[in-house]
């Protein structure tokens, strides 16, 4: 699971109002190279929740992203885009769990696939 996906996932348990971002429990992180595409990154820059991405990338052991939401002019910086690219697309949570910030309910991630299926009493 890429951090792009993590950035798009919220806890879907009935009654949870603050289900984003999900916390990450890491068992195994892998890195897979992805073709660098500045257009895609510029497109996604305005759509990602920056703090969630920074925190998630730190959970996965990558601390190169600036903590503060960067100015939009930063997307013209190649150095910045490379780091953003790496955090968003190349880091994968392979094994571990996503944790609902409100209920601490764990959603397991196995072979890179998060299981967001709910029990009957959570729907």
């Amino acid at each position, binding site marked *: 699971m890429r951090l*792009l*996906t993590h950035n*798009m*996932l*919220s806890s879907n348990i009935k009654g949870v109002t603050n289900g984003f971002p999900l916390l990450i429990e890491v068992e195994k992180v892998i890195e897979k190279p992805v073709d660098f*595409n500045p257009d895609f990154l510029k497109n996604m820059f305005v759509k990602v929740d920056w703090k969630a991405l920074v925190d998630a990338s730190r959970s996965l052991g990558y601390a190169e992203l600036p903590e503060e939401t960067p100015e939009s002019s930063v997307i013209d910086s190649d150095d910045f885009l490379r780091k953003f690219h790496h955090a968003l697309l190349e880091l994968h949570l392979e094994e571990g769990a996503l944790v609902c910030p409100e209920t601490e309910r764990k959603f397991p991630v196995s072979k890179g696939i998060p*299981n*967001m299926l709910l029990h009957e009493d959570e729907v």
Partner: protein
Amino acid sequence: MHNRGSNKISSRIAQIRLVSSHPEVYEPCDDSFALVDALLADRNNLLEHRPTLCMEVGCGSGYVITSLALMLGEEVPGVQYIATDTNPHAVEVTRETLKAHGVHAELINTDIASGLEKRLAGLIDVMVVNPPYVPTPEEEVGREGIASAWAGGENGRRIIDKILPIADKLLSDRGWLYMVTLTTNNPSQICLQMREKGYASRIIVQRSTEEESLHIIKFWRDFGIKPDTKENMTVNKTAPARVLDTLLSQVHWLSLKKSGNSNSS
């Protein structure tokens, strides 16, 4: 095995011999082939459309999302693919199918788009759905395993009717939805329902087999249609008839290679 003519075409879509399988996962069948054929028929438009995020709801074996990733391929760089299935075996099989073809999609084991609806709202440029459309007794809907791939309840509409509002929520302003329907699902009524949400529609592929008649319908937001307004409903009193006429006039009869359908086992 896959009777698709030239190598040029077959290299653009998933190869049946590389599609993984599991006893609890629906294998690529006529409906899957029809959906991929619809995407191929519309490929030039998809290339021009230059989607950023593409999504499949109910990816099953992974045949469709893999084919979409292959056919857009390097010509539309930087596309991200997301696929969901409620069946844990299906996302696993999809993972293997994608890997065997050297393409990637983010996979999520979830019910339709549960967990994604909030943050992914308005971001999907292309959505493909081969829903569980088979009319079944209501109690079969929502069962685990392979039944989730077909059990559609009354008129096969139970899950389709759940998916449509979610698709509307997730699709971007320029979003396109490709969906498989059966005649029993009442596709013209589905189109009307989507029209009320502001979507135009067109049948991309129609295909009849001995057992079923399939339509692959493409939906896109038409800003000339005022969604959900009473005036719209008044103005468009004749809408049902018109939509149906439009649909029927737009059916694209692709030349079918029925012999190619023997590869579903």
